[in-house]
């Protein structure tokens, strides 16, 4: 079974979540990711490159981040549908060494807010500091690109 590793900025992301939205959210994200990483079936589901996948126990939905994938970055996002639905976990899969790397944990932009604080929310914008950071770490870890 592939393993799940935290990137260098995940602790800082979780610290931001703790400051802005409380320690409960931070701990739930941690516990959810632990449950996910301990599940053979869930980890296997993360390797599939279908458009969008739902999975139960732990309940989550994952899909590729299309614009990143188009540029060769094997990047996906996880949404926990039952536990912390407001957050997204951005991860990379390195098929050459069979490893997953969580590179960011972010709070999704609220659907109802046309104006939002990009410092603490994210909507997959290519020029968002989270996108820039994630792709820089992807390359610094030498995670394999996909064709």
């Amino acid at each position: 079974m592939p393993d799940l590793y935290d990137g260098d900025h995940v602790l800082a992301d979780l610290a931001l979540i703790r400051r802005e939205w409380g320690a409960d959210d931070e701990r739930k994200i941690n516990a959810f990711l632990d449950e996910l990483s301990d599940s053979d079936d869930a980890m296997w589901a993360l390797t599939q490159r279908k458009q969008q996948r739902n999975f139960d126990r732990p309940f989550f939905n994952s899909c590729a981040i299309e614009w990143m994938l188009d540029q060769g970055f094997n990047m996906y996002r996880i949404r926990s549908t039952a536990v912390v639905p407001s957050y997204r976990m951005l991860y990379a899969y390195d098929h050459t060494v069979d490893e997953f790397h969580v590179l960011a944990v972010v709070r999704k932009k609220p659907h109802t807010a046309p104006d939002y604080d990009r410092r603490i929310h994210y909507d997959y914008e290519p020029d968002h500091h989270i996108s820039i950071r994630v792709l820089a770490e992807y390359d610094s870890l030498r995670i394999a690109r996909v064709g």
Partner: protein
Amino acid sequence: MTASASPALASPFSITATPATFLVQAHPGRANERRSARSGKLPRATYNAQREEADPNYAARMAETRRELSREMYEGKANCVARLRLAAGLSQHQLSALAGITQPHLAKIESGKLSIQLSTAVSLADALGVSLDELRPLTRLQERTPQNVSVGSL
């Protein structure tokens, strides 16, 4: 490639690079732990298990969080090993240690991928603090197959 363990847990270890993994050399109980070929880090579940071992306050908070997860993830669902484990506030690493089995073995039990001996079922029930009767689907199957228990429906 530079191996960089998470700062809070880096000091007990010395790292030797191998082509695909890093092995922990200095901690006899944790030899052969896998590390990322890319970052040299421990898998997140292993890292967090060690963090909980080292910080009882953090462990207590995580146990309470798992109890919440058991309600949020399994509301309306039948009892299963994973639900009982979370309700007990335990991670797979913690329950497997208490029950005397490996974490990958427990993962396969939870996902219904293998049959288990009655003795393992008893160990799990003891570790979870529940009776075998609370693992009712398992005990029903045990009545049909005295040696092995299929946990596919758990």
